[in-house]
C-alpha cells in the first residue's frame, strides 16, 4: 500500500503566500511515500518544504518555475501503476480531455496527473485516469479567480487506486473519494 500525494500550481509567492494552514497541519511526514507535483511551485523554498514531507519528490516544470531543471514531462512507476506527470500548459486546449488523453497515450501511462487549470477534475478514460489536483494554495489562474485550494492523495494498493480529494471550501476541508480499479496488470517494466 502506497500513499501518493499529488499537488501543484502553488504559485508561491506570486499569487499566494503559503499553503492553507489546514492543509499544512494535515501534511505530516511519515505517511506519504511519494509526492507528485505538477509544477509552478515556484521557488526553491517550496521545493524544500515538499522534500520535508517526503524525500521521494517528482516535479514537472510549470511555466513559472524558477528552477529550469525540472523536466517537461515525467513518468514514474508506483506498484502496478504507471503515473505520468505534466504541468499542462503545453497541452492545448488547456484541460481538454481529448488532448490530455493524447498525452496519456503518448506517455503510455495509467494515471496522468496535470495541472495549470487550478480546477480539480478527474476523468476515467480509456482504462486510465486523468486527474488534475487543482491548486494547493487556491492561487488564481489565468482563466478564473474563483479557485478552491485542493490536492489529492492516491492510495495505490495492488490493482486498485483510491483517490482522496481534499478541498478547502469556506475554511472547511472536504474530503472525497474516488475508486479506480485497473483491469490488467501493466506491462510497464
Amino acid at each position, binding site marked *: *500500500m502506497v*500513499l501518493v500525494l499529488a499537488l501543484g500550481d502553488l504559485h508561491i509567492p506570486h499569487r499566494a503566500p503559503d499553503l492553507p494552514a489546514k492543509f499544512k*497541519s*494535515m*501534511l*505530516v511526514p*511519515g*505517511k506519504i511515500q511519494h509526492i507528485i507535483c505538477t509544477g509552478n511551485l515556484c521557488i526553491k523554498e517550496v521545493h524544500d518544504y515538499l522534500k520535508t514531507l517526503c524525500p521521494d519528490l517528482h516535479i514537472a516544470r510549470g511555466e513559472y518555475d524558477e528552477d529550469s531543471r525540472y523536466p517537461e514531462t515525467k513518468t514514474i512507476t508506483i506498484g502496478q501503476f504507471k503515473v505520468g506527470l505534466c504541468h499542462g500548459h503545453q497541452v492545448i486546449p488547456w484541460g481538454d480531455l481529448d488532448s490530455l488523453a493524447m498525452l496519456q497515450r503518448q506517455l503510455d501511462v495509467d494515471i496522468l496527473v496535470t495541472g495549470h487549470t487550478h480546477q480539480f477534475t478527474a476523468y476515467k478514460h480509456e482504462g486510465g485516469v486523468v486527474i488534475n489536483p487543482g491548486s494547493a494554495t487556491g492561487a488564481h489562474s489565468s482563466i478564473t479567480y474563483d479557485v478552491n485550494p485542493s490536492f489529492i*492523495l492516491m*492510495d495505490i*494498493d495492488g490493482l*486498485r487506486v*483510491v483517490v*482522496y480529494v*481534499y478541498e478547502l471550501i469556506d475554511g472547511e*476541508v*472536504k*474530503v*472525497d*473519494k474516488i475508486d479506480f480499479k485497473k483491469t490488467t496488470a501493466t506491462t510497464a517494466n
Partner: protein
Amino acid sequence: MFDDMPAVSSRPELPVKSATLDVTPRFKDLRSVQWRIDLGVLPSSPSASTDDLRRVTADYRRRYASLRRRLLSDPHTFKDGSNMPDLAMDNPLSQNPESSWGRFFRNAELEKMVCQDLLRLYPEDGSYFQTPGCQGMLRRILLMWCLRHPQNGYRQGMHELLAPLIYVLQVDINRLCEVRELYEEHFTDKFDELSVHESDLTYNFDYKKFSKSMDSPSKSNENARKATSLSDLDTDVQQIVLLSDPYGAESELGILLSEKFMEHDAYSMFEALMSGANGSVAMADFFSHLPADGTNNSSPPVIEASTALYHLLSVVDSPLHSHLNELGVEPQYFCLRWLRVLFGREFKLVDLMVIWDEIFARDNSKIESRDPDGFAIFGSARGAFIAAMALSMILYLRPSLLGAEIATSALQRLLNFPQNVDLKKLIRRAKSLQVLALNAASTLMAHPLTGELDHRKPNVRGHSMSSDSLSPKSPLSLVPDSYWEEKWRVLHKEEEGLRRTGSEKRAPIPSKKKGWTEKIRASLTRTESDPSPAQTKNVRKGLRATVRRSLLEDLSRQLGSDEGIEDIIPQDKCSNENTSSQDSSWVSSDTSSFLNGAVDAEKLNAIYDDSENYASGESRVPISDVTVDSSLIMALNDNCIDKEEKNVKDQKLLLGKLQWLWRFGRGHASEETSDKGGVTMEDPKPSYPEANQNIETESSVMDETHKPCHSGKGDGQDLNMMGTFKNLGQSMLEHIQVIETAFQFQQERAQVGPLESFSKNVLVGKGQVTAVAALKELRKISNLLSEMTVVALTHKFLRETEGRVRVCTEENSEMAMRQFYNEIRGMKVKDLPSHLKLMCSQDYVKKSIQRGLDNYHAKYIQTSSVDPLFHVCFGGMVFSYLVALPEERRHLEHQQHAKEHGGH
C-alpha cells in the same frame, strides 16, 4: 523449510527434570503441551482429560482468531465492510487517532519496530526463525499482543521470549508428523475398520516381543506397523496420538498440536507468560518502566528484582556482593538483560529450553504468608527460582568476578556468559538457592531492606564472642582478627602435622605432631617475651625452618605439588576425621588437579562435588551444596573448639603464616618473592598488633634464607612466578570464599532451626566466628599476594628499561638515565600514586603505543596527507645528525686542539 529443526532424536533429554520434580510431568516428552500446562494455558489438574485439554485449546484458538480479525484489519477492507464511513474522519491524512487510518499508521510503526528486531532474531543462516513463515507468525503475535496491551507496548526482548515458545511448538509438531508417519493407522477413522482391528488383536500376541523392542528408534519403523493396538504403543506416542486425534471427541474440537494453529497456541502461551496467568511473576512487568504497584516510591519491577537478587547474593555470598558493590556493578546492568528475556541471551536455545522447563515447572501462584513489603520476585516459587538461577549464574562466574578489578571487566564477564557451562550443575545449585531464597525472603524480608540486613543476624552469636568493634561492611568480621587466626593456625598445623607424619610413616601419629607444635610454640613464646634475644632465636628458628622445609619438600613431592596444599585445606578439614591414609590418597588426587594453579570455576565445582561425594559417603548429611558445606564447617568447628590454649595460639598462627609464605618462596624462589615478602609482611601489622614484632623478625629471617635461592633466576622464571602468584592468590581467595559461603549457610540453618539447644548454638557459633575471622585473614594474605604480582611486574619492567637505556644512549645520557633510574629504584610501587601504578603495567605501555600509532595512522596516513613524508625526512635528518654528532664533536675538538697547539 525446517532444515535446521532438530529431529526428534536430537531433542535434549531431560533427566534433570524428571529426576528432580516431585511429580513426573504428565507430558514430559511433549514440551509444548507441558509448558502450556505450566503456564496456565491448559488445565493443570491431573484429572483433566485429553478432551478437556482440547476444549480449552479450541477456546483459546477461537479467541485468538477473532482477535486477529478485529485488530489486524486493513483499512481498505474495513471501509468496504462498513457502509460509507465518515470520510472527513477516515482518510489517510486524518488527524484523528481513532480513525482506522490512524490506527493503521500506528500499527505500521509498531510493525516496523517489531520487524527490525525480528530480523536480528537468531540470525544464523537458515535458522528456523528467519523463515518467512515464522517471521510472519512472530510478527503477528507480537503485534497482537502489543495492541491488546497498549499500556505495555512493544519493547525489545519480547520477541526473544516468544521465539522459544514457537520453537517448542514447532518441534513438537514435527514430532507429531513423524509419529503420524510411523503409526499411520491410528490416525485414520476407525469406525470402518473395527473388524480389522479385532483381527489384528488376535495375532497381536505374536508380536509382543517386537513391540518391546520398539523403543529403539532404529527398529521402530518396521515394528510400529505391527503394534496395532493403541495401548501397545509406548506412552509417549500414545499421548501424541490421543492429543492429535481429530475424532477423539466431538469433531468440532481441535487437536492439541497442529501446525495450522501454531500461531494461536503460541499466542496463548505468550500471553500467559507475559501476564503471568494471575501469578506473581509476569514477564510484562519486567518490561515496564513504572512501579508495579503504581506508587512513586518503589522502583520498576525489573529494578526491584535486580535489587532482590543482590540482596540474595549478600546473604549467600557476601564477599562477592561487597566486591561487586565496591566495583560499582549495579545489578540492573546485567539483570535487565537476564531477566527480561529469561536468560535467553545467555544460553543456547537447547539449553534455554531446559532452563525454562525448570522455571515454568515452578508454581507461579503467590505465596500468601509473605510480607507484602518484600521483594515481589520472591513472591512465588517461580520468581524465587528465576532469582536463584541468576544467582547461580553469578556464583558460577564468581572466580572471575572476584578477579575483576574494574566494573567494566566484571560486567564483561557477566554479560558474556560462557556457553559451555554445565547446565545441570547450574540448575542444581539454583534449586538449592531457591529454597534459600524463599526462606531468606520470608525471614529477612520482615525487616526493611536496606541492603545491610545482615547486620543483625550475626549479632546473636557475635556478642557472646567478642567485644571488638564490628566491621561495618561484612557481617563475618565479628571477631578480633587474631582470634580467628589462631583457629586457622591450629587447623593448618594439624593438617600439616598429619601430612608430615604421613610422609614419614604413612600412618597418623597425632602425638608426634603435638610434640612438634609444642616445640615450635615454646621457641616462639620465648621470642615474644624477650625482644632482644629474639634475633638469636630467629636464627635458630630459621634453622628449624630449613628442616621443616625439607620435610615439606618431601611431602610435596609426594603430593605432586606444593601449591596445592592450601587448596586442599577445606577437604582436609573434612577428612581429618577419617584415617590419614585415606586422606592422603584422596588429597593427592585433588592436589594434582590444582597443580597448574589455574583456578577456574570448574575446579571450584570439582571441589564442591568431591566434598559432596565425600559427605554422602559418610552419610552424614543430605546431598546439597549447602549441607555439604555445613558438614565441612562442623568438622572445622570441632577442630577449633578442641583447642583451649588461647594465648599460645597467636604464636602458632604466626608460624603458620610464615610457613605458608615460605612454601611460596621455595616453590618459585626469586628476588621478587623475598623482596615482596618483606613488603607483605609489613602490611598485616595494623591488623594484629600483638603479633607485629614476631612477624617482622620472622620476615627478616625469611629474607635471609631466601637470598641464596633467588640470585640466579632469569626473567622467564619471573614471569612464571608472577603467574603463579596471581593464580595462587586467586585460588586462595576462592577457597576462602567457599568456606565463607558455607558459614553463611550454616548461620542460616542455625537461625532457621531454633529447636537446637542453646548451648550447642553457642558452641557452634563460637567455632564459626573464629573460623570466619581466620578466613578473613587468609583473604588479606591472598590480596597481598596479588599485590605482589603487580610489584614484581613493575620491577621487571624497570629492569628491562634499564637494559635498553644502557644500550641506546651515549655515555652522558646514560649517566643521567642511571641517576634517574637509581632514583626510581628507590621508590616502592606502593609509594607511587595509584594512577601511576596503573601506568606501570606492560599492557598499558603497549596499549598506549598502539594507540599512538593508531592515532597517527588515522590522522595522517588515512587522510593521505603529505605530512608523514615530512616526518620521515625530518626524523632522518635528526637521526643522521645524532649519528654524526659525536664524530663532529671530536673533529671540532681536534681542530680546536690543533689550533691551540698550533699546527699539526
